[in-house]
């Protein structure tokens, strides 16, 4: 069972813990997140990155930071889960890639880059994955409208005469 004290001892008191239902969350400042994750991977046996996602807190009541990035880790031997959360801000949201620790971070990080524009330093192949290459916006940001900005109608029309 992961205990917070040893993490705080090593990485300072900015690391806080909270829990909700059966979820256990540890909030880590963004400059230390890679080292904390590496520690969890190396010493606490969290060998699977189950899920990695982000959220845009632009319209969230009482939020102070723009983006949150969550890592859901799992220890496949003991079944223990922990969620590591970190916050990022504009204009240049960037995190170190965790691809060296868990291979599943490959596409998860690409998706976050595609949807939120958060860059991952050290990622082997950081390209757009779901949207077309020439797309310029980041669709899951809260300032992007649900129905888009008309990109979906920007195609040539093929008529019977042409086909």
């Amino acid at each position, binding site marked *: 069972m992961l205990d917070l004290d040893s993490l705080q001892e090593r990485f300072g008191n900015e690391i806080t813990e909270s829990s909700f239902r059966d979820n256990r969350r540890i909030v880590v400042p963004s400059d230390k997140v890679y080292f904390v994750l590496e520690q969890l991977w190396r010493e606490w046996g969290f060998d699977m990155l189950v899920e990695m996602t982000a959220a845009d807190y632009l319209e969230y009541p009482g939020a102070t930071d723009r983006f949150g990035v969550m890592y859901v880790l799992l220890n496949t031997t003991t079944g223990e889960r922990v969620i590591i959360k970190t916050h990022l801000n504009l204009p240049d949201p960037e995190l170190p890639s965790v691809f060296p620790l868990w291979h599943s971070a490959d596409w998860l990080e690409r998706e976050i880059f595609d949807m939120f524009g958060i860059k991952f330093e050290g990622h082997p192949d950081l390209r757009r994955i779901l949207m077309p290459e020439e797309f310029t916006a980041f669709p899951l940001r809260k300032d992007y*409208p649900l*129905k*888009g900005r*008309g990109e*979906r*109608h920007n195609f*040539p029309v093929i008529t*019977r005469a042409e*086909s």
Partner: protein
Amino acid sequence: MAVGLPENLFLTKLDAAASWARSNSLWPMPFATACCGIELMATAASRHDMARFGAEVMRFSPRQCDLLIVAGRVVMKMLPVLQRIWLQMPEPKWCISMGACACTGGVFDTYAVVQGVDRFIPVDMYVPGCPPRPEQLLAALIEMQEKIMRTGTLTGREFAGRTKSNGPPPFDLDEVRRSQEAVGVPGLDIYTPPEIQLGNAGKLN
């Protein structure tokens, strides 16, 4: 048989014979992207059996097909592929738009989904439903056969009449309003409709 033909002969027009042959040996090109694709599979599989209508020969190369079945939503990244497949199919060719998403975008009124494939390629038959039951698709296939029987000619003259996409215009007023909302233009309440060439909306072949 007033003219006294032998009983194994009958008279018909060449146009009708060609249409009859075409309508009863449709080779579908299943452009199956999403859920409707599974119902398309169900239509071809044991219980519903599309072979009863001569359309079981699914070919995945557009060069061999004459009926495009767009089953499922088509998104921005996929639309150029769909157009290319349509252009690759040889004449005479027809298109069935299967399911709410292919017809209108359905529940997916989002940034990525094309709001109806008929904006960008010609469509002959729409099948509503999300997804349509296999029976509905079979009904559409039978309708399609009747349409081919009705309109077909040996030389393909009928295609000259269908010169334009017969769906809604690719750029409609509603869409302009939405895109204005989207970029957050101030003064949306004093909205004035922009001038738009309406194309040939609603013009049927």
